[in-house]
């Protein structure tokens, strides 16, 4: 399988998912194998409100904020991603004439993760040990399933959760899931779409886009503001795993994928 493109489409309202689907479908129709990875924070938050489940954040000692995924939140994550976001993307891709199949990490062990049993985090300004969080780090990808589908001309649409060795669902960051997938299938390009103008040198200046962002092999990435830290970590993981290149680009444009592949960002 040659020249695989992995596109990660953010879950915020700013990223135009219909435009992403249209571009992805065009690439697919040109014969390029494509995998679409998605999150869905806006849908998760909305459903959590409707179900009366509080949305909480964990702030790690290094300042990164992630979703506090207790058992009830994990249920909401699964409902929203598999039951709301994914059907919408499948319908949009179908309208563009593309055969797409929705998957989470639970499908045939697509994304295997190790749950992190304990986190250190800041909760309400206090340093605490959190033990009821169901999130973790991806340790394996069922590359065979993806290859089978790509060979059959099907476009996989993938999201968290992943599955732990004990068979339970584990939430995981969708950018890093996309990175693990890109590495596993040896993608030529991983495109991370975001609600910003790419990686900014100055977060308050939309025109300060970095044409190239170098990331050290270890330690904190050079830019950490506005959720960009995790994207750069994901980019590093993808590159170290053998992905050809990683693009971080604006998902708010009318042609987010086409423009990013053409060099705009």
């Amino acid at each position, binding site marked *: 399988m040659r020249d695989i493109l992995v596109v990660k489409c953010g879950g915020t309202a700013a990223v135009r998912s219909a435009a992403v689907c249209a571009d992805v479908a065009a690439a697919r129709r040109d014969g390029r194998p494509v995998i679409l990875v998605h999150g869905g924070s806006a849908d998760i938050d909305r459903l959590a409100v409707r179900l009366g489940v509080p949305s909480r954040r964990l702030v*790690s*000692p*290094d300042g*990164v904020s*992630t979703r506090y995924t207790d058992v009830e939140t994990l249920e909401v994550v699964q409902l929203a991603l598999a039951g709301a976001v994914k059907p919408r993307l499948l319908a949009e891709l179908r309208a563009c004439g593309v055969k797409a199949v929705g998957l989470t990490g639970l499908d045939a062990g697509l994304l295997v993760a190790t749950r*992190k049993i*304990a*986190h*250190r985090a800041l909760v309400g300004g*206090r*340093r*605490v*040990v*959190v*033990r009821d969080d169901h*999130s*973790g*780090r991806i340790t394996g990808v069922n590359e065979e399933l993806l290859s089978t589908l790509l060979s059959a001309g099907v476009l996989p649409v993938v999201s968290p959760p992943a599955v732990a060795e004990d068979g339970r669902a584990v939430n995981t*960051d969708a950018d*890093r899931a996309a990175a693990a997938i890109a590495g596993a299938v040896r993608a030529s390009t991983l495109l991370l779409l975001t609600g910003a103008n790419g990686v900014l040198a100055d977060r308050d200046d939309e025109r300060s886009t970095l044409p190239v962002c170098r990331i050290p092999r270890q*330690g*904190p*990435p050079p830019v950490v503001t506005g959720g960009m*830290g*995790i994207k750069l*970590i994901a980019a590093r993981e993808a590159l170290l795993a053998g992905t050809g290149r990683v693009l971080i680009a604006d998902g708010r444009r009318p042609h987010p994928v086409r423009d990013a592949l053409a060099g705009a960002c």
Partner: protein
Amino acid sequence: MVTCPECESSVVPAGTPVIGEIVECGDCATELEIITLDPIRAALAPEIEEDWGE
């Protein structure tokens, strides 16, 4: 007030402690995790591999 399992000093959490809270022993700097509140007990806080951005 809890007793530090390392040096047996008394450690007084600031304000009302919560389960899971990490407090540091003033004498030996060991990090303790509040395990129960009534009675208040603490154990060594787990060493956690810090994974940037996990």
